[in-house]
């Protein structure tokens, strides 16, 4: 059953009330039209049943923050800051660009970005038992990508870049102490934090990344069959507890 919600001039509280009601009534395919900057859409949502949500327009900050629900949210345009902030479960597919601090402290679920990503994407992303934060960026990401990353998988593909646009900004993986970052370029090691090390992908890494890229390609209708293992590097932490001794005296 298709449900359509018109968000024009709706404050985010009312928009979220409408969404909660629709989900409680069993809606599985919801389209929200006319979104323009409403913050906290689906923030803190819990739900038992899977459902898909399509957002038309520009959702405001903290889309799906703290979300803990099997919802798939597709954004037809760009998103602002803090998408999937501390998200525990769910999947966000952004057809355009994502703003700063997207995937901040994410603890599970997937964040697929079809365009470019801003500053501090996936900082302090985590993994625990069967959950792992998963972020894929089709284009490029700016500074502090994966800063203080504690777990999960993130990948940047560097597609469709303008001339001179770096695949990732400075301070990548600074303070990283868990998880894995894949980047489709042999980047200057000086932009990577000293707590992390760059290496080549193993066959196992490539298989794991391949599964993820297949899903990403399907969701964003992109052909990624031309990507190959030797283009990528892997970034992993040097130590699981880089600050273990810092405050111990």
């Amino acid at each position, binding site marked *: 059953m298709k449900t359509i919600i018109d968000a024009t001039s709706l404050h*985010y509280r009312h928009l979220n009330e409408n969404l909660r009601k629709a989900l409680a009534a069993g809606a599985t395919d919801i389209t929200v039209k006319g979104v*323009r*900057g409403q*913050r906290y859409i689906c923030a803190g949502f819990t739900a038992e049943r899977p459902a898909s949500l399509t957002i038309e*327009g*520009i*959702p*405001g*900050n903290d889309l799906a923050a703290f979300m803990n629900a099997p919802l798939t949210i597709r954004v037809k345009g*760009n998103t*602002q*800051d803090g998408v999937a902030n501390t998200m525990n479960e769910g999947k966000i597919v952004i057809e355009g*660009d994502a*703003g*700063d601090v997207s995937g901040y402290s994410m603890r599970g679920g997937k964040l697929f970005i079809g365009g*470019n990503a*801003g*500053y501090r994407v996936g900082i302090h992303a985590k993994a625990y038992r069967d959950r792992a934060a998963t972020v894929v960026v089709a284009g490029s990401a*700016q*500074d*502090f990508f994966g800063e203080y990353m504690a777990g999960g998988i993130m990948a940047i593909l560097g597609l469709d870049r303008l001339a001179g646009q770096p695949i990732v*900004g*400075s*301070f990548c993986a600074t303070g990283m102490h868990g998880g894995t970052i894949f980047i489709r370029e042999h980047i200057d090691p*000086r932009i990577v934090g000293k707590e992390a090390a760059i290496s080549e992908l193993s066959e196992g890494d490539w298989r794991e990344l391949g599964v993820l890229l297949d899903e990403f390609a399907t969701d964003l209708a992109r052909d990624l069959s031309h990507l190959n293992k030797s283009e990528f590097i892997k970034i992993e932490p040097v130590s699981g507890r880089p600050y273990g001794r810092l405050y111990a005296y």
Partner: protein
Amino acid sequence: MTYVSEGRIASGCSVGAFIDRSGRAISGDVVVELMASMRDRATDLGAGYAGYGIYPDLKDFYALHIMYDSPTAQVRTEEMLRSRFAIKRDEVMPTRQVDSIHAAPLLRRYFVRPSHLALAESRLDEEDEFVRRTVMQINAGLEGAFVFSSGKNMGVFKGVGYPEEIAEFFRIGEYDAYCWIAHGRFPTNTPGWWGGAHPFSVLNWSIVHNGEISSYGINRRYLEMMGYRCTLMTDTEVMAYLVDLLVRRHGLPAYLACKVLAPPFWDEIDRMDEPDRQVYESLRIVYGSASVNGPFSIVCGYGRGMFGLNDRIKLRPMIAAEKGDMVYIASEESAIRAIEANPQRVWNPRGGEPVIAQLYEDVAV
């Protein structure tokens, strides 16, 4: 003056600005729509607007917008103005009654030119510097009087209230400008009072700011050595004076002035090729006390244009967009889309990398 609102509301500042590079004048209603769409970022503790090109019939006169907290302050200030300026026009600022806006100060504006005699006596051959010094003297020395706008063919309108309410109060929709800069305030460290609302302005400079300046003490002492007085109880004030010092008085291009405010890191400078390395090293050495530390996203208007700038690690939001002759800068993309649904280009500027947009060279305003 103690026009302070009580209480705290969890929020974040909003900045919004645009310019039509062809010089076409755009109604203030458009900038109000831009700001209204970010209402959740603002509070009732301060908002303001700067419009460029709003006084075309009086464009050769400095437009002094002054707030007074008593008739005495007004009498004393006007005595000083008469001794220094030829006053072309002197009027009450047009305002409208708005229920939510109270305790507004007395608001007047004066269109003036420095008198030949006063200019000669001051031994300054430059009118801008004469006006700047007079503004500083009034703001620091005349109790209860604040000049909050002193440029030509531009004006600042600001006070305590939400952006839409302040706009209604000052009848912003009745002005047309080729460049608008606006702010919704969430005061963090300093009181929300009429003079403390953004934009901060001196001469043609106006600045709106989202963030905090942790180098305020150093910047303020440096500016005091250069003859500036910081009196508005708000950190952003130093930015307006810094750009005045760097660009107007020291002649730096706007781009390099931005690189003084948000300098590259030393290790980035080490990696640069000559002559860039030498230029940036010199800037950091000469202007160390003018670099601004702390999170910021600012937009600065300067007569023929505007620039947006983030701190170098981008701790505050800023998005830019372009369509035809228009360039937009705002805290949120959704705000830009509120007034331009289909921009040709939308981008996230890098921290420390200014977005500069100005009138085309052949445009006269």
